[in-house]
């Protein structure tokens, strides 16, 4: 995949507008191989984004196998709740995955709605 500076800039702008400006801490867009395509928000101290991206890609691969075991094609989103931080993963088009990390000051409902909106916007940006 070839990424241009313009594409990354446009993706970051829509992510900032939809998630970061509403207090979501960090958002990553990654591809199915675990590469980071865009990284927005606070550089959470100690966040190892490379490992997070690799594990996310592998985790999605593993859960899509679980999906097949119960007769589903894939799971389009995953969510893990922590004590202070929560993480939401959503499958975008073109095998991309959107990862959002947020605290308890942000509602899961808001993240889900905004991620759905972002999925359409990001697809349009990558399709040019």
């Amino acid at each position, binding site marked *: 995949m*070839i*990424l*241009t500076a313009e594409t*990354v800039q446009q993706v970051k702008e829509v992510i900032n507008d939809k998630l970061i400006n509403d207090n979501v801490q960090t958002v990553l867009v990654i591809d199915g191989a*675990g*590469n980071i395509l865009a990284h927005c928000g606070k550089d959470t101290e100690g966040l190892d984004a*490379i490992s997070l991206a690799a594990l996310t890609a*592998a985790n999605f*691969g593993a859960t899509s*196998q679980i999906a097949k075991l119960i007769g589903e094609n894939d799971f389009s989103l995953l969510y893990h709740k922590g004590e202070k931080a929560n993480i939401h993963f959503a499958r975008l088009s073109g095998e991309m995955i959107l990862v959002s990390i947020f605290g308890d000051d942000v509602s899961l409902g808001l993240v889900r709605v905004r991620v759905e909106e972002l999925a359409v916007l990001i697809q349009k940006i990558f399709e040019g």
Partner: protein
Amino acid sequence: MALIDLGKKEVHCKIVYYGAGRCGKTTNLLYIYNAMSDNDRGKMLTIDTKGDRTLFFDLLPLNLGKISGFDIRIQLYTVPGQVMYEATRKLVLKGVDGLVFVADPLKVRQERNIESLNDLKRNVADHGLDLTEMPLVLQYNKRDLVDTPVPTLTVEELEQDLNQEYQVPGFEAIATKGDGVFETLKEISKRTVNYVANKHLFNG
């Protein structure tokens, strides 16, 4: 699938170390991790079981300097070698750009090496790739066992078993001591970067 970031002028490639269980894939990564400076390596991620067998994968990100103004960033992965983890191996191979096949020299592992290479060929084919056209390097590991009473395979026998079809470079290695580790990494990195550049930059 390599990523070429024209904005940051970075090329990201994924190289996977493949081979039967206990052949020394993780040992290669650990040696590289310990030998490189903090500036050139990222954090090494390992998901293993209590018995130190790789459960999912190991990951080691490296910076290999600049070529034509682009920073070359390589992510080294290993797969779990045991036969039962085929589904996991297939997952880790997603988006692979280059491969190192690590062979075990023990005579009792001769069949396992061949099975593992066939498994690799099948798994990359499932991702729509042809192993004969991909960057591939063989590593004949544990050559220090040759001087012990344990029955081992000669390099010629390993070549006969594994390299007839591919005709790619093979490196003798003792990964625990680092012998041959960087020679293998250098060759596969060179081949992978050439492959990615030809595929994505020069052919549009």
